[in-house]
């Protein structure tokens, strides 16, 4: 029919959605509040680490990665180092930008109007995910810059190129990690009609994984590979291996392992290392390439977990009736 022949420029729907969502996020109270809270905590962690680094510096004289220690050591009165702290709190970021992605539109009554525009339905969820990831990326970059700036100011040490490269790679991993939580929260927002229940489920999952996962994994490993009284080294090792494998289902473990290897160049293994294996090993730094090789499985695991959650959110959303 002639009326349809006048086709307009094909609009990339997801870009429009992402642009609008990102603008909303950056101006939203939640972004500013989270930035201030995380910024203060991160600055605190690094500030105290900088005081503690003097002791480390004497041991690690000549260590080429002194700057990175800012991110990995903790000192009184802060109980966490910067990266542990990000590992623990960053999920909040992902959840904050995802928990009401779809059900929020439903609640406001904007979803039917949005999908009635000439965009594909997946543009909505893709755009929202991209916007969420961008907001998170911006936030993390800001935090790292604040921390790095404080470190340079307080310690007067300048990071080397290798250290900067490690930080950049770590940032990518951290964004991926938060991306997992974003995808998970988005999935919750598709499945649960109320934003409050979606936030609750996402936060509960995060707390369970963060606080009780280790305990659960220990229990399950004890069942799969029991360690009887007076068992030999092999049995104990087997138990430990099972426990480790199980714990790697959790994105938190994956993030922790990847971070350790990336921010501490001396790390040469992220698994179980026996004393025999360490015998006569020479303590030295790995190159970034070697460290990356070490954590490649963890990174792939994080990507896979994020993808599973996103695909679940995507498929559920595509099959849902628009009408609540």
């Amino acid at each position, binding site marked *: 029919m002639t*009326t349809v022949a006048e086709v*307009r420029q*094909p*609009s990339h729907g997801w870009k429009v959605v992402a642009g609008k969502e990102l603008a909303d996020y950056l101006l939203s109270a939640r972004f500013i509040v989270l930035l201030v809270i995380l910024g203060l905590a991160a600055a605190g962690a690094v500030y105290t680490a900088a005081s503690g680094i003097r002791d480390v510096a004497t041991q690690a004289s000549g260590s080429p990665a002194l700057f990175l220690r800012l991110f990995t050591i903790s000192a009184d009165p802060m109980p966490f180092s910067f990266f542990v702290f990000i590992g623990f709190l960053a999920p909040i970021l992902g959840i904050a930008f995802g928990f009401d992605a779809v059900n929020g539109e439903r609640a406001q*009554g904007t979803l*039917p*109007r949005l999908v009635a*525009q*000439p965009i594909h339905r997946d543009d909505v969820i893709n755009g929202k995910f991209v916007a969420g990831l961008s907001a998170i990326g911006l936030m993390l970059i800001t935090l790292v810059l604040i921390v790095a700036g404080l470190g340079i100011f307080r310690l007067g040490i300048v990071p080397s190129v290798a250290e900067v490269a490690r930080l950049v790679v770590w940032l990518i991993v951290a964004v991926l990690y938060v991306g997992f939580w974003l995808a998970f929260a988005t999935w919750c927002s598709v499945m649960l009609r109320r934003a409050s229940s979606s936030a609750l489920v996402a936060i509960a999952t995060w707390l369970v994984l963060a606080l009780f996962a280790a305990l659960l994994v220990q229990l399950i490993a004890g069942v799969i590979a029991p360690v009887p009284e007076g068992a030999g080294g092999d049995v104990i090792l087997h138990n430990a291996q099972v426990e480790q494998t199980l714990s790697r289902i959790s994105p938190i473990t994956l993030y922790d392992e990847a971070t350790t290897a990336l921010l501490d160049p001396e790390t040469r293994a992220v698994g179980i290392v026996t004393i025999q294996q360490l015998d006569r090993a020479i303590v030295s730094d790995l190159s970034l390439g070697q460290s990356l090789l070490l954590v490649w499985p963890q990174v792939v695991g994080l990507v896979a977990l994020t993808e599973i959650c996103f695909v679940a959110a995507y498929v559920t959303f595509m099959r849902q009736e628009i009408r609540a």
Partner: protein
Amino acid sequence: MTASTTIVTEGLTKRYGELTAVDHLDLEVEKGEVFGLLGPNGAGKTTTILMLLGLSEPTDGKVRVVGLDPTRKPLDVKRVVGYLPDNVGFYDSLTGRQNLRYTARLNGLDKGMSDQRIAAALTEVGLDDAGDAPAGTYSRGMLQRLGLADALVKDPHIMILDEPTMAIDPEGVTEVLRLIRSLADERGVTVLLSSHLLNQVQTVCDRVGIFVKGRLIAMGRPDQLVASDGTVTVELGVNGDMDQVEQVLRGVPGVTEVERPSGKSDRLWHLTTQADIIPAIVHAVVARDMLVWHVRRLGTDLADVYHRYFEQEVGHDDSR
């Protein structure tokens, strides 16, 4: 289907498990026509509309909008169809104008074009002054008008309006209806609107379909639907002795049936007549010194028609 038919459904059916929301709907809406889909809540109006837009997949049957299948070519259909959803909502933190701008961008309009269209649309719905206030501060009626403006931004060939007069004050309803009528008359826009308020929409609709429990039980021009079998029902209020009144009423030539409607005032009568003989009836009553305090011809507005059809449907169901 002729070339000027813009919306066609054939045997359109939607089932949710056991429930049949839309049952073999056959509909044709001509270009430039205002078609009203009338029915109670839960009749399947919104489900039908979602299928027309490709937002819900039909279980069975065929849909063509501007000659296209909305399930296969949703983008081409949505490009030319403006949609005002039931209970329309907007982003509270954005102004009305910003909300419309988002719609314009989603439609691939460039900035100059969209500003121009948005200004025109806001004027048309009477929201000139409120355009720069956050949508969160709007009243329900204003949101409804903003929804109409939102559908106008893409300069649609077809407008699908789900309960367009809902929550608008009576004066606003008149304005909105006038706007809908002028869209059809001046721009040749095809309008399909759904409503459960018949008296409101019968003035603007060229044709209406009465939709109950997923089925279209009647369709035609409002006046066609009113005059179904040539008989006229007159409602009459008369003071006086009831037996005497009944005797007089039965004596009027042309009156075939006299009854007292249950549940209404004692002195109210329903007369079925072969033609419009109200003057004769009134004259006969007054000639006997009885007072007539109320006369109304029933079946003249769609509400009565709708009730008649609706009661038939219910009765039909009970007998099963």
